[in-house]
Each structure stands twice: as structure tokens, then as C-alpha cells.
């Protein structure tokens, strides 16, 4: 019997994939959202974490951005 799981398919570059995997590792076991890691640039995660991942990535980008003080 074929098994079907509903979720969100993520496609990104390798550094971003590693960041998401790291994010997954740092949350407590009940909150882990990665269902399958498909390959180095794709993964399958739970449906409700989309917004959370986006905001974390935005924060990561802001942290790594240098803005010249005016």
C-alpha cells in the first residue's frame, strides 16, 4: 500500500539546507519538523512550519548584514 504524507517541499541551496537542518536539530524533540531529508538541496517538512522557517531565515539574513552607521 502506498504511503502518502502531507507536508511542505523545500527546495534551496546547500548552505540554506544545512541551516534548516541545524535549526531542526536545535529545537526540542516534540517540535522537530523535518520529516525526510531528500538530498543536499531538498527536504520535506511538516506543513505548519513554513512561516517559522521564513522568519528565521530573514532573521539570519539580518544578523549577517552589515549596515554602515549613518
Amino acid at each position, binding site marked *: 500500500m*502506498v504511503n502518502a504524507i502531507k507536508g511542505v517541499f523545500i527546495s534551496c541551496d546547500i548552505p540554506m539546507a544545512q541551516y534548516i537542518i541545524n535549526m531542526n536539530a536545535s529545537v526540542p524533540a516534540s517540535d522537530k519538523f523535518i520529516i525526510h531529508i*531528500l538530498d543536499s538541496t*531538498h527536504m520535506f517538512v511538516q506543513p505548519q512550519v513554513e512561516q517559522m522557517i521564513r522568519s528565521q*531565515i530573514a532573521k539570519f539574513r539580518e544578523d549577517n548584514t552589515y549596515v554602515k552607521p549613518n
Partner: protein
Amino acid sequence: MPEVRIIAKNFMDMVASMPAMKLDKLYENGFICEAILRSLPPLGKKYVLQLLHIDVPVAAKLLEEWVLPDGYTKHRVAIDRLVQLRVFVEAVDRKNDKTYKLNPTFQKSLQKLLVHGGTLPREPMPSNITVRLPTLDDLEAYALQQWECFLLQLISSSLVEKPSNISSSLMKVFQRRLLSQRDKEAPKLTESGFQFLLMETNAQLWYIIREYISNSEERGVDAADLISFMLELSFHVIGEAYNINSLTDFQRSIIRDLADLGLVKLQQGRKESWFIPTKLATNLSVSLADSSSRKEGFVVVETNFRVYAYSTSRLHCEILRLFSKVEYQLPNLIVGAITKESLYNAFENGITAEQIISFLQQNAHPRVADRTPTVPENVTDQIRLWESDLNRVEMTEAYYYDEFPSRDVFEGACDTAREWNGLLWEDSKKMHMVVKTGVHTYVREYLRSQK
């Protein structure tokens, strides 16, 4: 810019969607035939010319033989456009082959135009009555000023010192898709509003005219009359005065709105009043086709991301403020810089990097226009990189399938998903696959049928 084609085609689509009887009536006017001819793609124009004096239907295959194989898509586009506008009449001959013939009304009007020339329903007024006619430069300045005033008022009425006479209800119609009104907040530009500002003048003009025409139908005015007047106006001579009394009542009622948009200038003499078409009006028929803009630019972009705009217009300042940080505003120069923050701001508002880049390229100052590339590559590359930086991760709602009973079932499911354009990822060794949520039902049906 793709936007020009979309808007112009929408106007043409509006013309094409008119009922056949009305369209044929429109084609009795030679000028409308000329305007429609000028709006066709180049191949379409050629086909019309070739079939102009041929009365019998021509086999579609014969028309195809004139085209080389790699021009075939252009050929199809031209033919589709011609049939859509009912310029070509499609028929089937005895051998069940498709044939084309020119619309007889269109053909007759065009033949008459070719041999006898067209005459407008009105003549310019003699110069002894019309005093103080503005020079061509004055007229162009006037048209530009009216149009900018209108655009500024469109974006925000607070920016304009002297509002035009367009009724607020009409303004609201124009603002329908461009501004979003939220309670207790000032109206903000929507994504299409931003894209509208970055389009070139002719595209903006056609957008406004299209909204005006679709709104006029709601008010009970006949769209066909409006369309024919607009197109007829584009054949008047720029700078010449035409008596207002030569207009019908209906035309007189809309001439005022056209003056507010900058298409005509109204002047009053001692006894009579007249209108003078401006460049905006006479360019109407040119801009229907897919040709590039022929305006002089004003923007210089340098490799250090600084933007210098030689312009005095407030509108240009507002447009530049959309995506760059305006630093100084001098009497004839606007100095700004393209920064990451200003671009992120623009991206959040829905403007794409391509729109910004094409705006900069289209409006390049003549001094840099001959340089290739007009906008330095490091600037264009960086704008694109900043845009892609915002979209590093792509997320799609999907379903994950595994534990297939056999390879054949797996292959079949993959093919089904591929047919519906929903296959996102597959691993043939482990027999796992991911499909889009929308396609899930089809794959499930296929799997059920396999049992």
C-alpha cells in the same frame, strides 16, 4: 518592456471583444482601419497589404508557404490576431481546407484610403480667428505638465497644489486597482500601482484610457463611439486648432476629460472655442503596436550605485524614491543611491528586479544611451542578486509518497504526476516521490485504479 504589450493588447482585446456588427460599423471609418492596421504585428500588416486587392479566399496553406520554418510562431501570432480582430474572415472551402479573406468592409475602407487619402471630419481653423496658438514646444510642455499633474493626483492628492477638474468619482475608477484603501489609513499603492508607475507613458496612457472606456460602459456611454473618437483623434495634426462646434455632443462631453489628461488643449477665442491635439494624442496610434519607446531619457546610473536624474519633475522624483534613496534634489538634478534597503523596500512592495532594471535602461540619458550596457553590469547583477537573496528557499505544499508495491506502479505514478505538471522530486532507486498538493487527487486516483 512586456507591460506595454499587455496593456496595448488589452485595449485591442477590448476592441476585438466587441460584437461583430459594431466592429463592422467601426471599420467603415477609414481612420479606424488605419489605426487597427498599425497596431498589428509586422507580419500581420504584410498579410493585410498582400490580400488588399484579392477578392477570392486564399488557402491558409498558401499563406504558410510564404514563411520560413523558424518564423512559424510569428506567423501563427499574426494570423490569430487578424482573426481575433475580424480583419481576416476564416472560411472552409470545398476541400475542407481553411481559407482566409479580408473583411469586406475593412477592405473597402482601406482601398479607399489608399487611393483617395483620408479626410478628417473637421478642418483646422484659419489662423485669423485663432490667435495666440501655442508653439509646439509650449504644447508639449503643457501636455507633459497636465499628465504629470494627473499622475501625481492619482498617487496621492496631497502631492498636488492645483488639482485637475477630473471628478473624484472618475479618479476613484482610475485608482481602483492602483491604490488600496484601508480605513483610517492613507491610500497606499498596490503592487500593480508600483508597476504602473514604472511603465512608460504610452502604456500608462492606454491603461487609463482602457479604464475610462470600461467605466463609460457602466455610465451608459457607447464604447464604440468612444473608441472611434480616440483613434480618430490620433490622426489630427498636432498643433492645429479645431473648432469645438465640429464635435458631436457626446464628443464635447469627453473633450474636457481629455484636456485634463493632457491629450488636447482647450482655448477660448472671442466667439468660438477650439481644441488643439498634443503629442500625447497623436502618439496614440503609434503606441498600439509593439514598438519601443522613443522618448529621451534622463537617468544616469554609475558603477558606484549612484543615480543621477536630470529632471525637474516631481513624478520622476517619486518614481526614483520607489527603489533608490534620494539624497539631494537640486534645481535640475536629482541625486540618489541604490542601496540594499531601498531595494528591499521596493521588493516588499511587489516590484521585481527586472522592472527596475528595464526602467533604468529605458530612461537612460542620451549621454549614456549609446554605451553598452546602458546600466553598468555590476549594478544590474547586484540588483538581481539582492532579489534572489530574498527568495533563497522555495516552499511548495506537497505530498510525499513511498512504499510502492512495484516499480511499474512507481513509474506510472511518476508519469501521471508529470503529465499534470506536478512532479517535484523523485528517487527511482528508493522509489519515493513528491508531488504538488494540487495534483495529489489525480495520483491517488491512478493508484486506486492500479489495485
